[in-house]
């Protein structure tokens, strides 16, 4: 079986599942029915050929399967809810699913998977399971937890959706500001996990980073008027565009400044910057638009020295006002040092809470670099030594020790 067929079936499966969830109101039943349809497709399409409308084919088979199960259940339990579902699915058998119906179904399902009544971990897992068609084992591998743990996390979430009746609906306009951030956070978590997933951790057939971009694109397509959705897609694209230059031949991380920019995917960078520009014109600024703008400025620069540091420093200032955090502050200090000198960067580091930075080696190694640039070598060495007391991982420790001996020379 070809990989592309497998991929197509899996992605179509997500759309079919969304429709089946609407019809049956039961994620587990819908999943079983779609799984059945997918298995049939993978058996028959290589022989019979791929149907003209694969989604419609899968939907019809899955509906028929769901009907069989519901008929059996309804006979056995005589539950009112089963009878209602049965009627709904039966009535839908003649319904042709239009693109706009599938879009609505998908949008509803995204808001269900990312409902704030579910734990943040469960939202991410459920989205990858239901909307991206990943298996429980694949998701467990991404998040480095045991298969059984991930299986429990997903089944508990599904159980809560059923028992507490988390509805399948798109929040109304006035609810959207409360509900959209959870959806964006899930997509962002997938994008970030895909970006940081070390080589070899994932199945060869599955690229989480691709999946992050696909998910971001889906959310943007479904809510084209939300500038933060566009911002998040742009951020995903600008990050993913550097994929071929991020690791050297031995698989070690290459710093942005040392990456071979000719290996970046410049068409994707272009799309990202167009998205950000259009989004910013809507004048509803948010963290993802700002992060995307920063990523675009980095990737649009022909070299590290031609980077627009003043603009990046300004964007970090804006980002810090939207989402203050020690990480944002340190990034802002680095950009400010590039734009306005090491002293300006150090001033931003000085102004941080001791409790935020005491055990954080990146703060101290950044501080060391900026002190070194001002000519304060002994201060820099002291800061590196402080960084080494913060339990850095092996490769960070090796880097810091090398740096310390360089400075002492």
């Amino acid at each position, binding site marked *: 079986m070809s990989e592309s067929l497998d991929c197509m079936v899996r992605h179509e499966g997500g759309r079919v599942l969304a429709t089946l969830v609407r019809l049956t109101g039961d994620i587990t039943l819908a999943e079983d029915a779609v799984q059945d349809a997918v298995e049939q497709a993978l058996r028959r399409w290589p022989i019979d050929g791929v149907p003209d409308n694969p989604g419609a084919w899968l939907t019809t088979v899955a509906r028929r399967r769901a009907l069989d199960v519901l008929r059996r259940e309804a006979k056995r339990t005589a539950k009112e809810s089963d009878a209602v579902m049965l009627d709904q699915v039966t009535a839908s058998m003649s319904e042709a699913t239009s693109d706009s119906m599938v879009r609505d179904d998908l949008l509803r399902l995204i808001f269900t998977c990312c409902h704030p009544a579910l734990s943040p971990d469960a939202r991410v897992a459920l989205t990858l399971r239901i909307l991206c068609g990943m298996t429980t084992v694949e998701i467990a591998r991404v998040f480095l937890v045991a298969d059984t743990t991930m299986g429990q996390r997903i089944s508990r979430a599904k159980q809560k959706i059923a028992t507490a009746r*988390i509805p399948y609906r798109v929040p109304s306009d006035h609810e959207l500001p409360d509900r959209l951030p959870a959806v964006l956070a899930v997509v962002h978590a997938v994008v970030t996990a895909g970006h940081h997933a070390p080589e070899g951790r994932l199945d060869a057939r599955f690229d989480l980073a691709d999946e992050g971009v696909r998910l971001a694109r889906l959310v943007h397509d479904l809510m084209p008027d939300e500038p933060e959705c566009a911002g998040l897609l742009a951020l995903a694209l600008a990050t993913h565009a550097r994929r071929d230059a991020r690791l050297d031949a031995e698989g070690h991380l290459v710093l942005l400044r040392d990456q071979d920019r000719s290996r970046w995917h410049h068409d994707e960078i272009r799309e990202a910057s167009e998205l950000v520009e259009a989004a910013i014109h809507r004048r509803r600024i948010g963290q993802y638009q700002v992060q995307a703008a920063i990523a675009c400025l980095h990737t649009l620069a022909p070299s590290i020295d031609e980077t627009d540091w003043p603009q990046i420093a300004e964007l970090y200032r804006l980002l810090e006002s939207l989402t203050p955090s020690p990480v944002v502050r340190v990034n802002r200090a680095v950009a400010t040092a590039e734009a306005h000198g090491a002293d300006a960067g150090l001033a931003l580091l000085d102004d941080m809470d001791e409790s935020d930075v005491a055990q954080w080696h990146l703060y101290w190694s950044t501080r060391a670099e900026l002190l070194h640039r001002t000519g304060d070598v002994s201060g820099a060495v002291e800061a590196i030594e402080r960084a080494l007391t913060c339990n850095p991982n092996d490769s960070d420790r090796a880097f810091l020790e090398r740096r310390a001996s360089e400075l002492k020379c």
Partner: protein
Amino acid sequence: MPRYAALIYGDAATETSGTPEQWASIMVEYNDFGATAGAAGVLAGGEALQPTPTATTIHVKGGKGGELLTTDGPFAETKEVLGGFYLLECKDLDEAIHWAAQIPGAWHGRVEVRPVIDFSQE
């Protein structure tokens, strides 16, 4: 129609303190909620509980008919205590959250929303 229990938790320290004026203004808020939710047909019941110092916790040790152990105070000594509850009739969790967010306990403390088991559907 599914039912949800909205369990209202508040700070144990302020449960017994507070001036009469403060309590009066909180009562006005609760009366408002009762009137609005009642008119919408959402309220299926609810009670306010006396403060936790009035509570008695009992346990029968060793199974039915065993030794009766009676202790003074609530089951769990916590900073936030159960002060009352409503039973809300809502079609789904979003609707229950919508109404629970209008219970004054949601801003004076916390409201925990729990689906009630419908034994006719089990």
